[in-house]
């Protein structure tokens, strides 16, 4: 209940903010269009990105950044329509906010072709990292394969020999398993594609029990991961689980409960990364919104600060200068050091986290580093 009220307040705040900013539009130098998922099933992720991003803008105290926020309902055609509106009517300079790869693929190529900057706070499809990279497209989160590659590297480090790997049957799922295999040196004991949106995993768990695998790698974002983790914990199969952070973020863990305890997962961020920016971010986010920040909130916050750093040193009307300012990535990231590779995707450390319980709250702590200064596999194909 508290949650709902909070959301309403937030919305009003954001709208009030937009209104006051619109009122002094003459001063506004940079217009940002944020398209993200605020209603329906995947709304939790979009709300976190938005809240993280707006926190950064608010803390900067700048009045020359106007943010227009719209809800894509997780539908690609709505996202395209909103992008058209922002480009044609609102005349934004920079776009951001999209959570899902399929929506990003619908919007980003068109937006950058029309001379807009796009800063991705979450999705990093391989098509935009390799041959399809663009000088105006920046990814502040990760290339989609990164966290899965880290999981493969971690499994290799732990000298696991036989992996059972599992993901939904769609492009991001196929990329996940490919990413894992790219860095895993052992054998694949089982490779299973599940149905997108599947809720019952009894058949897959029986296959895991029967296989010779000594561990399980799974990529099941959102509700699929919750269902799998609960059912796996109840099945009595004890093979260790490894996954990317998406099934273990702050919003989801509370719904999984004890079933997630002790599971290792890979992430480029955690709330215990030791640097002043991160500590201040975690404290101020918690104070403002009454909940712990998630991975997505940190990505939204970093995206906001990257934008602010560029606005501080260049005029958005001068595209080359603004692009150079973005490339410099001269801001304090919650992840510590932050740099872009040649394809405008991050080069960063990816950590191994373990799910723990702090008091009543389930959360993660970092237990190791899977990959250091890791760039994605598609960067060499990018010619800008």
């Amino acid at each position: 209940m508290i949650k709902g009220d909070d959301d309403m307040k937030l919305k009003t705040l954001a709208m009030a903010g937009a209104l006051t900013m619109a009122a002094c539009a003459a001063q506004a130098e940079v217009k940002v269009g944020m398209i993200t998922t605020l209603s329906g099933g995947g709304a939790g992720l979009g709300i976190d990105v938005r809240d993280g991003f707006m926190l950064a803008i608010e803390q900067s105290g700048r009045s020359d950044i106007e943010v227009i926020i719209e809800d894509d309902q997780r539908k690609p055609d709505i996202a395209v329509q909103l992008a058209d509106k922002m480009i044609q009517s609102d005349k934004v300079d920079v776009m951001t906010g999209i959570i899902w790869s399929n929506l990003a693929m619908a919007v980003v190529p068109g937006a950058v072709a029309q001379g807009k900057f796009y800063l991705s706070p979450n999705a990093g499809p391989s098509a935009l990292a390799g041959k399809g990279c663009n000088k105006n497209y920046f990814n502040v989160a990760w290339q989609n394969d990164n966290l899965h590659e880290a999981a493969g590297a971690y499994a290799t480090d732990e000298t696991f020999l036989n992996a059972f790997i599992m993901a939904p049957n769609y492009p991001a799922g196929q990329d996940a398993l490919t990413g894992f295999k790219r860095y895993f040196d052992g054998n694949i004991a089982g490779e299973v594609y599940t149905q997108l949106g599947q809720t019952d995993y009894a058949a897959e768990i029986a296959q895991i029990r029967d296989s010779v695998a000594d561990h399980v790698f799974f990529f099941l974002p959102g509700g699929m991961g919750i269902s799998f983790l609960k059912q796996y914990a109840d099945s009595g199969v004890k093979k260790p689980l490894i996954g990317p952070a998406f099934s273990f973020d702050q919003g989801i863990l509370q719904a999984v409960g004890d079933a997630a305890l002790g599971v290792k997962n890979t992430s480029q961020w955690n709330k215990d990364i030791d640097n002043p920016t991160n500590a201040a971010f975690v404290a101020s986010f918690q104070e403002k919104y009454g909940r712990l920040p998630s991975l997505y909130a940190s990505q939204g916050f970093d995206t906001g600060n990257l934008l602010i750093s560029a606005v501080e040193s260049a005029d958005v009307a001068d595209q080359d200068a603004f692009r150079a300012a973005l490339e410099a990535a001269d801001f304090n990231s919650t992840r510590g050091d932050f740099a872009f590779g040649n394809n405008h995707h991050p080069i960063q450390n990816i950590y191994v986290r373990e799910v723990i319980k702090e008091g009543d709250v389930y959360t993660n702590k970092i237990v190791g580093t899977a990959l250091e200064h890791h760039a994605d596999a598609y960067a060499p194909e990018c010619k800008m």
Partner: protein
Amino acid sequence: MSLILFIEQMLNGVQFGVMLFLMAAGLTLIFGVMGLINLAHGSLYMIGAFAAAWVAGMSGSFVLALIASLAAAAAAGALIELTVIRRLYDRDHLDQVLATFALILIFSEGTRWLFGSFPLFLEIPPYLSGPVTLPGGIEYPLYRLAIIGVGLLVAAGLFALIARTRIGIQIRAGEADREMIAALGVNISALYTIVFALGAALAGLAGALIGAIQSVQVGMGEPVLILAFVVIVIGGIGSIKGALVGAILVGLTDTLGRVLLPAVFAQFMAPQAASSVGSSLASMSIYILMAGVLVMRPSGLFGKA
């Protein structure tokens, strides 16, 4: 694949089927008695799961949570029957589809407004958690066996209700000739409210039971709703027996398809491609089954033509 694993997968298929039956029973009951297509049945399932998660979170008792799910879903069901649904009985299916589609929108976003955008926590009670060893050495989760038990109890209860009780006689009479039993002094509108609330309560119970091993989130009802429709259409709409048979058929087809098809394709394809192609076909398998049944028997297996 070993014989033991195959038997375990058959069991999984039956178990998945029983889960679908819990959802489909209320849907087919409502259709059979009132001739109403209720797309909002999935919302009642969601309401049951949310009520259970909320009460379990407050009280820590799974039994209380189940009672809450029954009560909340029945109350929501009675409320929409009195305000909206009863105006739809003599409308065509088109109006029913649109009106109950509108109810889905209202319930889904209303729930998100109340409980927020993040999934809720609901867990299996300690006395039902963990696996038990079945004859033949199969380790099987106790909770899933309990779901099979509840599903069979619900089926038996519904058969008994319709065959043995006074309300069952009225229901059957109402299906056969609505005017006649109204003329005999049965309060038909009260009867319909009761039947609708009963169907809703079954959906709520299913939501709570299944919510303990799945994700309790907004929109959880829609995928199950479509499967439940597939089930009752295969079985023949309005038939409880059809729903049970249809549910088990769908459960087995889906589970065995997921397991066997990739294995079949692996005989002549690379593992990754085989898994992907097999899984695509498996996700279409139940719809192919349904189309096949309807082409052969246009009113389902046990439907009245």
